[in-house]
């Protein structure tokens, strides 16, 4: 026979101060765990949104970042004519030659300045991406004009329309703000390809070439024909793979968060064990009575264990609630691939919440196991005689 669960809920309610204190400890460790998971989830959402599943990024052979890659204009002309590339309405191939570098802008978080990705591209490059202007107008070819991403305009006070920012060989006027949804493009500054490559001494070469395949089947064929072309010394990867890899930028923060929540959980585990031991001692008489009534050792063990799991489970739910508002928090993290800051929003998803709850339940079970065993093992006579 089972000891009714209401016996445990009542016990927790009677000692509400101790219950609340222990629960808060567990709730905070769960909140930190959920926050760490939400950070990584938020980052990968941003990178997943940046990639177009049909697009292929061409870098020099063996290259793994746009920043450290060179593709010459000659190679670009060859790439444009490879078969399998989609055309735009005007019949021009969707192939974009781009130059990537970084500029340093002071932000509100970082007065010393953070790196922001600067991308030089031509109108076809804009067409290939899912961006639209929020305000102002696009940069014009041949002018020292740039358009900044939404996140850049929010995070860097100097990045306002009409302002000038300094990178490369001089000043650039900001003419517009663009929005690429929840994507890494919002953390970039865009300008005319020829203007920007001239500023970085990169005439006749670019960092990368972006190609759009006509359909998913030809994507693979396109990748192979680029990599196997003896005239080119290039590797091609899908945009999706390229951006997915960058999610690793959040790894140090995730590691730290998980380390801290695990250590905190050990501390809270001891605290849970502590209060459960006290409960067992205090309720010696009750345990004796339960045994006299015929409850088995197993059901008493289960009763105390479920009390501690109930406590930690509730605390876990509380921790999840504490972490939820993070969904509205935007922060930035440096990407080791683009060597610049990517703004993203925390994303507390169901998986993170579930992980938090499971974590709490495991913690409660671990902390409650020994005290529950002690309760189950009590001799009836001794238990009844206890003060």
């Amino acid at each position, binding site marked *: 026979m089972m000891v009714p669960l209401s016996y445990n809920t009542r016990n927790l309610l009677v000692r509400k101060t101790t219950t609340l204190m222990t629960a*808060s400890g567990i709730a905070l460790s769960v909140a930190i765990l959920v926050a760490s998971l939400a950070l990584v989830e938020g980052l990968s959402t941003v990178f997943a949104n940046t990639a177009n599943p049909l697009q292929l990024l061409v870098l020099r052979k063996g290259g793994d970042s746009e920043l450290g890659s060179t593709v010459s204009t000659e190679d670009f002309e060859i790439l444009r004519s490879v078969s399998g590339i989609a055309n735009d309405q005007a019949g021009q191939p969707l192939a974009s030659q781009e130059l990537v570098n970084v500029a340093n802008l002071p932000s509100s978080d970082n007065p010393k300045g953070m790196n922001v990705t600067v991308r030089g591209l031509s109108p076809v490059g804009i067409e290939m991406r899912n961006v639209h202007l929020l305000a102002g107008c696009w940069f014009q070819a041949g002018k020292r004009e740039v358009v900044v991403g939404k996140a850049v305009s929010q995070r860097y006070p100097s990045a306002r329309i009409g302002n000038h920012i300094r990178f490369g060989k001089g000043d650039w006027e900001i003419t517009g703000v663009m929005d690429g949804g929840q994507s890494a493009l919002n953390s970039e500054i865009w300008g005319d390809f020829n203007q920007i490559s001239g500023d970085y001494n990169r005439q006749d070469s670019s960092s990368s070439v972006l190609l759009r395949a006509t359909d998913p089947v030809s994507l693979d064929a396109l990748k192979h024909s680029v990599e196997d072309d003896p005239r080119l010394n290039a590797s091609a990867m899908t945009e999706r793979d390229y951006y997915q890899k960058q999610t690793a930028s959040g790894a140090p923060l995730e590691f730290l968060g998980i380390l801290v929540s695990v250590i905190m959980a050990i501390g809270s585990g001891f605290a849970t064990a502590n209060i459960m031991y006290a409960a067992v001692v205090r309720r010696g008489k009750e345990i004796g009575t339960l045994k006299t009534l015929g409850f088995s050792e197993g059901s008493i063990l289960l009763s105390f264990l479920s009390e501690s799991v109930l406590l930690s489970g509730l605390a876990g739910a509380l921790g999840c609630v504490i972490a939820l508002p993070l969904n509205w928090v935007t922060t930035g993290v440096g990407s080791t691939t683009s060597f610049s800051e990517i703004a993203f929003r925390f994303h507390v998803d169901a998986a993170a919440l579930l992980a938090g709850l499971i974590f709490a339940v495991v913690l409660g079970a671990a902390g409650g196991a020994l005290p529950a065993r002690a309760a189950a093992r009590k001799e009836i006579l001794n238990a009844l005689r206890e003060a």
Partner: protein
Amino acid sequence: MASIAVSICLVGLLFALTRALFFGGDSTPGQAKRVVVHHKVALTQDLPVGYERTIQEIPGVRAVTSLRWFGGTYKDPGNPKNRFAQFAIEPKTLFGVHTEYQISQAEKDQFVAQKTACVASRTLAEKLGWKPGERITLVGGMLPATLELTLAGIYDPHNDTSSVLYFNRDYLRDSLPAGDPRRDMAQQFYVEAEVKDAVSDIAQRIDDAFAESPYPTKSEPERAFMLSFVSFLGNLKLFLSAICGAVTFTLLLITTNMLSMSVLERTREVGILKTLGFSDSEILGMVVAEAAVIALLGGLVGCALAAGLSAALASAMRSVPGFISVASGLALSPLVAVLTLSLAILIGFVSSIAPGVYAARTSIAQALQYNG
């Protein structure tokens, strides 16, 4: 007490991390005299190699070398083992700037004499099984050049396990196509000062010298430069202080909880003590003292755990480029230990007040009747 020890261990570790990240920790003796000069706008922007002469003439400068990140690939770049940092430098001054690098005179001479020679850090050479004489081919990525290098020697950097290869900048220059504007450009200059105290003064003088040129510079002590990579991790300061706050709060809850329970369990004993004539304030004092002792013991165990943990974390970080300087600053220094212990004792005091006052206020009759 175990829960206090674990939590205090965490607090100690976080304090040590905060110190290493934001208060610089300590410069290694090698770093203390070094200044890094880079372009004011971004690290990836080039500076003319000719700056080297101007910097050399600044009083107090002992040695200077330009540096360019090559970023080429070695064998199969898909294998992470084959990835390492490659820098083009001036062989004559490299070891004058990095005085902490240990290398034999014969190897050093060969590095200077042979244009295609290179040197590798001990970690890198061991990782790839290189012996002096090894032929190393690097294929350029950003720079259109293929370098065929010969390993002249292996140097021992002090307490640094990163994988680095240095080669002659003249060789890179000659390998680049004739019209390439980057032939005469460098990315950074490493400057060794005569004395430690002159470092910030020299940095200022260098920046002043180039302030009006088309390529303005930013010079900073090497440690500060290394730590600027940390800002890359995101808003770590906020993250760490949030966690520190949460941990301290939890710790307070746990300790108060534990103490109230231990006082409650001994209510009857408190009654007996009072019957024997102990005053209310003496009872309060006893509870507080007990808490302080528990907190101190927990704190000591926690500090010991934290010292071990930060040492482990530091050695793990040391092989990650960019984190080397964080790793060298990550240790439970006496100051951090004292801070952590004081926090433990403070928490002991604060959490003992409520149970202590409760014990002191309970009347004898109530206390003796209590059966918990």
